[in-house]
């Protein structure tokens, strides 16, 4: 293992490669911070540069872009409530309230440290136990993946314990939205009313940008002017500082950090899952197990750490099946695979055995990127944070403009802008009526994964529910789901007795 680290660092730390990795990190952080540019899009945009490089360096460069873009997504999530990438949506839950309290710097600091830790944990997992992790991933078939996504959905019951019914309704609305478009199994149109825009389904990114960013602008616009101006300023001297949290403060989040990093790595390895599901699942699990669970969502560090450590760990996780099996764990990994295949490199189990340089360079790159990233992201965040000092009367419209560009850039489709605007208005109504936007997003994110995997499992077992639910992994996960779903009822009953 140390040989691998040594080889990796030897490759990465040559001056030219190190410069390229730094450039990749800068590119990644900026791409990630732009709404509408997902991590896979960032990797696709960086691809032409990689074509000109030696394949070992090319993959190190692309890995840097990939890891950094996921981190970059957290910056706008915290500062403007715009999730730069879908995987940073849960970061807005605590990051944005913290920034509003005048602790933008600290929130960014937690996000960067958590990202770096998550990324490192995944990198070490990848280098140490890649083959073992891959063989576990292979045990996850459709029924197991359904159980994983259902576990995520069962968390709906505890997203907002004061408003369980409204939260469940929001979640169900999300699940309904996930049904719109082409049926994943039969290929027929559902709820599209003849519209070709709806045929491709409800895109997650415009909905998230609408629900979070546009809704927030609408909310701020409705506030009295004096209050409106003060929102954008840090208290104190009015300057926003990106202060890294102290060791003590980070140590206080150790449990969350560990859980999120491990969970993120595992979810990243699973085919069909990815950074978005990892961060949502991690946040949701914190809601269940954290000691400060009741404060999650009010702007505490644990929320940021849960989301950011998990989504960065998932990037490392997705490299595991890619390098040891030749199966990309997500879209970005698939693009990296294309780049290497074009270069004539055969990815797969043989690669690790015959050309350990690649594994070493990915490992080295993740290691170095996660350190360089903290420095680069702090500088980028500083620039972004300056924007916060701009009065909201100007900032608000700028956010709407950025959101519009982000939604349009996704597919060059004006239908997505309309979708974003609708989501923004729905989000505003949700706030007014106390429904839960996060639950809606969770339903939308996990809906398709759980539906298609369940129906696939059902077809594969010729319709035998007993076969699906008696598989060991499925059974364990489903039991956990039942406990999660029944727990609030028991708690409610016990409280009533008192």
């Amino acid at each position, binding site marked *: 293992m140390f040989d691998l680290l040594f080889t990796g660092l030897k490759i990465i730390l040559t001056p030219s490669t190190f410069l390229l990795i730094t450039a990749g990190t800068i590119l990644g952080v900026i791409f990630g911070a732009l709404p509408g540019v997902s991590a*896979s*899009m960032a*990797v*696709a*945009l960086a*691809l032409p540069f990689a074509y000109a490089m030696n394949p070992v360096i090319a993959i190190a460069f692309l890995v840097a872009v990939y890891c950094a873009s996921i981190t970059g997504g957290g910056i706008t999530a915290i500062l403007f409530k715009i999730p730069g990438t879908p995987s940073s949506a849960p970061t807005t839950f605590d990051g944005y309230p913290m920034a509003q309290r005048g602790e933008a710097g600290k929130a960014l600091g937690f996000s960067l440290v958590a990202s770096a830790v998550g990324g490192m944990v995944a990198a070490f997992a990848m280098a140490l136990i890649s083959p073992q992790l891959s063989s576990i*991933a*292979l*045990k*996850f*078939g*459709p029924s197991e*993946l359904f159980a994983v996504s259902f576990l995520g959905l069962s968390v709906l019951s505890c997203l907002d314990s004061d408003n369980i019914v409204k939260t469940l309704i929001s979640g169900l609305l999300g699940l309904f939205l996930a049904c719109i*478009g*082409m049926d*994943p*199994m*039969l*290929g*027929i*149109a559902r709820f599209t009313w*003849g519209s*070709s*825009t709806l*045929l*491709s389904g409800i895109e997650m990114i415009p909905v998230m940008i609408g629900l979070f960013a546009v809704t927030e602008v609408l909310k701020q616009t409705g506030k009295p002017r004096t209050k409106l101006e003060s929102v954008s300023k840090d208290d104190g001297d009015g300057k926003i500082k990106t202060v890294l949290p102290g060791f003590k403060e980070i140590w206080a989040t150790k449990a969350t950090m560990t859980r999120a990093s491990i969970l993120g790595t595992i979810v990243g390895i699973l*085919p*069909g899952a990815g950074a978005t599901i990892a961060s949502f699942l991690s946040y949701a699990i914190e809601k269940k197990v954290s000691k400060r669970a009741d404060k999650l969502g009010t702007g505490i560090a644990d929320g940021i750490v849960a989301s950011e450590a998990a989504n960065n760990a998932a990037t490392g996780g997705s490299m595991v*099946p890619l390098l040891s*099996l*030749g*199966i*990309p*764990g*997500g*879209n970005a*990994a*698939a*693009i990296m695979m*294309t780049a290497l*295949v*074009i270069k*004539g490199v*055969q*990815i*797969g*189990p*043989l*690669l690790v055995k015959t050309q350990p340089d690649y594994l070493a360079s990915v490992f080295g790159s993740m290691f170095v990127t996660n350190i360089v990233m903290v420095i680069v992201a702090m500088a980028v965040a500083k620039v972004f944070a300056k924007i916060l000092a701009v009065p909201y009367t100007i900032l608000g419209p700028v956010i709407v403009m950025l959101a519009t560009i982000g939604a349009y850039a996704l*597919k*060059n*489709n004006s*239908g997505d802008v309309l979708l974003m605007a609708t989501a923004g208005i729905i989000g505003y109504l949700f706030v007014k009526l106390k429904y839960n936007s996060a639950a809606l997003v969770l339903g939308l994110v996990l809906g*398709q994964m759980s539906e*298609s995997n369940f129906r*696939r499992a059902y*077809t*594969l077992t*010729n319709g035998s529910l007993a076969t699906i639910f008696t598989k060991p992994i499925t059974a364990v996960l489903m039991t956990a789901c039942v406990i999660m779903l029944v727990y609030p009822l028991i708690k409610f009953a016990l409280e009533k007795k008192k």
Partner: protein
Amino acid sequence: MFSKKVLITALSTLALAVFTGCGGDSSKETKAPGEWEWERKVEIICPWGTGGGADTTTRTFATALEKELGVPVVVNNRSGAGGVSGIEFGAKQPADGYTYIMATPSPMLAQISGATNYDVYGTLQPLVQMVHDCNIFVTSAKSPYNNYEELMKYAEENPGKVKAGVMTITGLDAACVMSAFGDKIEPVAYTEGSQLNADVIGGHVGIACVGPAEVSAMVASGDMKVLFSATEKPLTLPGYENVKCAADLGIDCFFGPSRGIFYLKGTPEEALKSFEAAAEKALASDFFKNWAKTEGLDQRQGWLNRADFKAQWDEDYKSLTELFGKKN
């Protein structure tokens, strides 16, 4: 004063126009009457996102085509609805010879299967085919069957046990499964290629119909076995020496993703002729050929001219309608 300025500007513009007009005529090669002259950038609408097979093929082709046309060729990705959104967008562009649409039979299948009411078949006019990929059938290395005959025997002894993973239930891969196995082996749709591959190796799904490039690594490492190829001739790819093709086995399942360039009705005939000639040269260039070889896209005849591509497109429409049953 102002009118003087306007006059001078107008006169100099006129002089410049005459000058460049003359210069242009004298320096150009003599063009036959009715021959098309490319004046500005050409746009190819790719109805799928960046990074995928459709996009990379179109971009590689565009790079080679630029050299032949002498004007920039840009690829505009407008993804959504399995290609239908991009085609709808393309159809709204002026048919002035500068906008083309890249497509595969998939959007046409969405129409045949009833997923969309949009008349994809009527809108797209085939111009040239760039590449024609093929499908293969793979299984896990641990499967009890090693070839078509053993698979069929196993499927008959264990009815309903073997299912075939495909990426779209109304796609060409599903069409291959249906033509090859009839009702013996049922296709099961996947939304992520990575999950399909992992499910094959993990033994969750019996077989899969995929493209050779998508599984080359797993075949090379011995995690997957190739049962047979859905092709007319045996594949010449390294590692496929002992793999039988569908034609040898007497099975008619030759559907494979073909990617081509389409035009809109009303596009000037001269532009189409010029584009077709330039595309033939671009596809024959070493640059494009080498790329196709590394991608494993050299197994079937890629280039098809307008007449041949039209004939094949119509034939695909007919046979896929028979297979899936026309609903729109």
